């Protein structure tokens, strides 16, 4: 800072620096944002009378959480939940197994160009399609049942895990991999001793995280007929059996919390 600038600043009050320094850009963004908010609000017609009527039911639902009903639909809840867990386990295993080679192929520093492009293409397709949309298509093709859900979750796992694994491989330490290669290792040995130890902790952590996501997603696949607890939950809502719905939601939250706790322990151990 030159003398002049400092002299000019002395005696003037300190002002908070702005988040967006350019004033024109700042004002355009602000005005545009407010205009958008008004436009958006105008097009949402909220039926306040209906909302007011519904508050009663909302209160009932919140109250249902204090006395969830695990018993009267125990059979349905149990079989739905088991199906969700089964789908999660099978899809996570298959998804992780397939995503490892694809992740290797999608890493620019390991794979040659054609393989890289193919693997990146698979990742992009899998990530762009929503689980529930894939499930709709697979249910139409393979029929109702957990097989469609299993395929959906496996497909989604591939996109998620391969991308993050590939990014991790691309940012790995080259020196270690080169040292292994210099010892005369074959390609398989190079991957096994040069690359794998570097990415293993992250791969385990990401896999645990994906299992968690897969379970949460398996809870909604039932809405489109792809198996799992979602169908039971949907029926409970349709019949206004809030106590059963509350029980299912509590079970889902409980299992997700348990999975998160477990993955925390495992991640702490591998790192």
């Amino acid at each position, binding site marked *: 800072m030159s003398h002049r600038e400092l002299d000019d600043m002395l005696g003037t009050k300190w002002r*908070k620096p702005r*988040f967006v320094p350019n004033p024109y850009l700042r004002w355009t963004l602000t005005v545009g944002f407010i205009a*958008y*908010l008004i436009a*958006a*609000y105008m*097009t*949402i*017609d*909220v*039926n306040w009378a*209906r*909302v007011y009527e*519904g*508050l009663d*039911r*909302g209160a009932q*639902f919140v109250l249902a959480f204090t006395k969830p009903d695990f018993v009267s639909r125990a059979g349905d809840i149990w079989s739905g939940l*088991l*199906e969700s867990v*089964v*789908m999660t*386990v*099978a899809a996570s*295993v298959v998804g992780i197994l397939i995503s490892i080679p694809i992740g290797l192929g999608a890493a620019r520093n390991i794979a040659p160009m054609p393989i890289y492009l193919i693997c990146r293409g698979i990742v992009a397709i899998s990530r*762009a*399609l*929503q689980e*529930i*949309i894939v499930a*709709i*298509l697979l249910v*139409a*093709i*393979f*029929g109702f*049942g*957990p*097989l469609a859900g*299993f395929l959906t979750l496996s497909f989604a796992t591939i996109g998620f895990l391969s991308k993050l694994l590939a990014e991790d491989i691309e940012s790995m330490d080259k020196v270690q991999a080169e040292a292994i290669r210099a010892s005369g290792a074959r390609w398989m040995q190079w991957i096994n001793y040069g690359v794998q130890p570097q990415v293993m902790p992250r791969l385990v952590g990401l896999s645990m995280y994906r299992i968690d996501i897969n379970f*949460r*997603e398996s*809870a*909604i696949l039932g*809405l*489109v007929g792809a*198996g799992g607890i*979602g169908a039971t*939950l*949907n029926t409970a*809502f349709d019949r*206004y059996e809030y106590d059963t*719905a509350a029980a299912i*939601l509590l079970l*889902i*939250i409980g299992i*997700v*919390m348990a999975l*998160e706790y477990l993955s925390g322990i495992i991640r702490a151990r591998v790192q």
Partner: protein
Amino acid sequence: MPVLERNGGHEWRRRTTGESLIRWFGWLIGVAVFVVCWQRISEATTWFFVWDAPRIADDIWSRATPPRWEYITQLGRPIWDTINIATLGTIIALFLAVPVSFLAARNTTPSALFIRPIALLIIVSTRSINSLIWALLLIAIIGPGVFAGVIAIAIRSIGFCAKLLYEAIEEIDQSQVEAITATGASRWQVMAYGIVPQIMPAFAGIAVFRWDINIRESTVLGLVGAGGIGLQLSASLNVLAWPQVSLILLVILAAVVISEWVSAKVRGAII
């Protein structure tokens, strides 16, 4: 690292015999669990439909191509609704997530014993339930429509945003906070000048990241009746209008790709 003596020479091994036995046993259990899960899925599957699947897929493909391009004139309003659901939902969620995250962060919470667990419970319970399930619930309570979608997205996003934000708050540089405190600032002034400037980039990044995810999620909310382009999708699926379905899927794909591009650009500009 164990070294075995064999045939008069030393042989290096990665693990001791006991360790490898335990690992082998762990793998055995894992494989057994997977086989059991696969059997359950296989029992619940009508294999005839699966063998027939290539023909069905071919059939659907021939029905769905080419997309009915002129239908796009009817998709303007639904896509506008979808964007509104995502944007308004994200804004509401951010307003609610900020106080929750300040209550959940270890260094800003008023009471680590009572208030922090409640904030963490809010985060976990809103995060573990998918927005489609929130939408189902809200439709039962406040009736179908865009409004239910906005609230569903908002509730689902609270946990996600609050979790990332409270982790950012816990990682701030404490010396800046101390410096502000040393000037005699009140609790609120410390927050406004010591903490907020440090988490602002993280906050903006989280907001854009979540907005991107919310665009994806809001495209399918219509499947359960919560407004947006999903309504058109489910209507077209119900009447088996496959050319319309393929056009809607293309529009959704375009929306997802554009939102991801915008979010990547904005995050690149901030960080």
